[in-house]
């Protein structure tokens, strides 16, 4: 779907994650919550894809399905030319070394009963990489990399602030020298001042270690800062995909336009053109017919209610893609 000039490290094709809804005495499956419903994207090595969308659109589920925390319903994920979803458990353990994950909640993502050394170094033990003094040195290295010091080695998570905990989370993700990190809203639980520190740290590390990121977030300003490419999700599907500059300058999908118009501008005198969407996000267990966005879309017409548009090239150069009949 995208130009194949450089190596695509991550390729996700038609990913679907459906959760069964069980009801009744016999717990029969009466339907599915289509959390992710046909998502495709790819990321070049060393680049960042920002995945944005409002709560409940399935962006976190995409990340969790990719590392098989949630079993996928359909689709493929090819990482470094290897199929992840069909990998055996032994192979999967090896793949996990290269794919790491960062979590949203700095208070919940660290085991409160473990010291920082054990939290960061655990992966080294699990994958039989190093132990004892060697492991300790590696952990100290990592702490240094994320801006903490060896003084924090024997401390417990509850003794740290949110930003520091997120740094510990980053160090944990880096412990195995991964190629690809899925950042699941890593800054949305932090203060704005700390957010920028963490974002800059992530960018520095990307440069130093040639990391590839899938950056899941709902904050468009943060995504603009860190991403090379941006995918906008709505109700389990990607509705627009483009490189960052194009997307922010010239959004094609009406949903993206509405989202972008909602970013607060630090210019109080500037005239605002806020597009306010009516209605609620439809339930992913019973999505609307046709284009899932049509009930809230200001441009919707008859055709949108019946037919679903897939991602098609839009705009000049065809690098931008949007799933819309109208624009």
């Amino acid at each position: 779907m995208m130009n194949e000039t450089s190596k695509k490290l991550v390729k996700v094709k038609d990913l679907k994650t459906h959760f069964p809804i069980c009801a009744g005495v016999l717990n029969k499956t009466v339907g599915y919550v289509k959390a992710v419903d046909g998502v495709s994207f790819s990321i070049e090595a060393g680049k960042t894809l920002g995945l944005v969308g409002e709560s409940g659109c399935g962006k976190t589920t995409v990340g969790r399905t990719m590392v098989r925390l949630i079993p996928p319903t359909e689709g493929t994920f090819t990482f470094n030319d290897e199929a992840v979803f069909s990998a055996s458990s032994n192979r999967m353990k090896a793949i996990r070394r290269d794919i790491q994950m960062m979590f949203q909640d700095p208070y919940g993502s660290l085991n409160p009963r473990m010291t920082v050394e054990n939290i960061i170094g655990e992966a080294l033990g699990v994958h039989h990489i190093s132990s004892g003094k060697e492991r300790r040195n590696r952990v100290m290295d990592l702490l240094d990399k994320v801006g903490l010091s060896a003084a924090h080695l024997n401390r417990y998570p509850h003794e740290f602030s949110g930003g520091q905990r997120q740094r510990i989370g980053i160090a944990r993700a880096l412990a195995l020298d991964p190629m690809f990190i899925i950042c699941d809203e890593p800054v949305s639980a932090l203060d704005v001042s700390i957010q920028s520190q963490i974002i800059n740290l992530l960018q520095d590390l990307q440069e130093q270690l040639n990391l590839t990121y899938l950056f899941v977030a709902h904050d468009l300003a943060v995504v603009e800062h860190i991403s090379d490419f941006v995918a906008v999700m709505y109700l389990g599907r990607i509705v627009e995909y483009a490189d960052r500059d194009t997307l922010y300058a010239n959004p094609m999908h009406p949903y993206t336009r509405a989202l972008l118009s909602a970013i607060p501008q630090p210019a109080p005198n500037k005239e605002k053109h806020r597009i306010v969407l009516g209605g609620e996000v439809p339930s992913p267990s019973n999505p609307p017919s046709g284009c899932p966005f049509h009930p809230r879309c200001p441009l919707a017409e008859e055709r949108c209610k019946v037919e679903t548009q897939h991602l098609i090239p839009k705009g000049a150069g065809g690098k931008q893609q949007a799933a819309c009949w109208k624009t």
Partner: protein
Amino acid sequence: MTDLTTTTENSNKPVKGRSLWADGIRRLRKRKFAVVCFFVVLVYFILAGLIYLNEAFNWNISLFDWRESVGPSYQKPWAEFEWTPEEQDLAEKGRTFFGTDFLGQSTFRKMLYGAKTSITVALCASIISLLIGVPLGAIAGYYRGWVDDIVVWLFTTLSTIPYILLVMAFAVVLRERTIFGVEIKGITAIYLAIGLTSWVGICRLIRGEIIKRKESEYVLAARAMGCSSLRIIFIHLLPNVFHIIIINFSLRFVSFIHAEVILSFLGLGETDKPSWGAMIDAARTELARNVWWEMAAATVAIFIISLVLNIFGDALRDCLDPKLRTD
């Protein structure tokens, strides 16, 4: 909250962190009354231990020799008496502190010995019920599915039978049996009966806690890292519910002491050695003759340990549960 990562701690020496355990114990030590209660509990345990050692090494400490006749039968507490020459070669004056029973044995010594019986039963029953309940609950909660169905079925079935009836049935069945070449007699039958029937509560509790915590981000992080299920259960989940086990253990201990008393009272307990239940059982007939001291000694002993264990258990819960932290 600001990120004080590099400003406050520049030294590179690891600082000892304070674990949640250390933190809990520090808070517990601030509660003077709980500490007093703890020492009272300790006195009971030391007493039981000393009686054990006395029996094992034949120290012949007269205070623990409950078999010895210290006076005529049914002597009142603090009553002075004189041995008749027929009963004692050397006629001498004596005094009993807590009175004597029908056989002229000291009520006080019997009460002390009862501590050993009670604590042995409560301790062994606790260990048995924890060994059954905790792993079952953890496995059921973590794996869910059919494993969970079986465990839930097992404990709901067990809990539909009235507790005392169930314990009595087990005690009767297990008495004077030889199972796997081990002869079960006396209090062994009691603690087996109590232990085998009372794991339901802790199992249910642990199962619920594991279900609650297995979706937390630190567990997801461990799974994404490639930790095995057993590692997640034993390294990540159980240490985080261990305070619940400890609290439950301390509160449960009292009910096990009571269960032993009830069984002994019903004549299913220790028959040839004193226990508080047996003392109360004997007092049934004695009370009509105005012999109240045997009943009083046993009830006071039970009352004190029940009270202090409950107070201590409550304090333990307040201090060890990170969610109830007040300071």
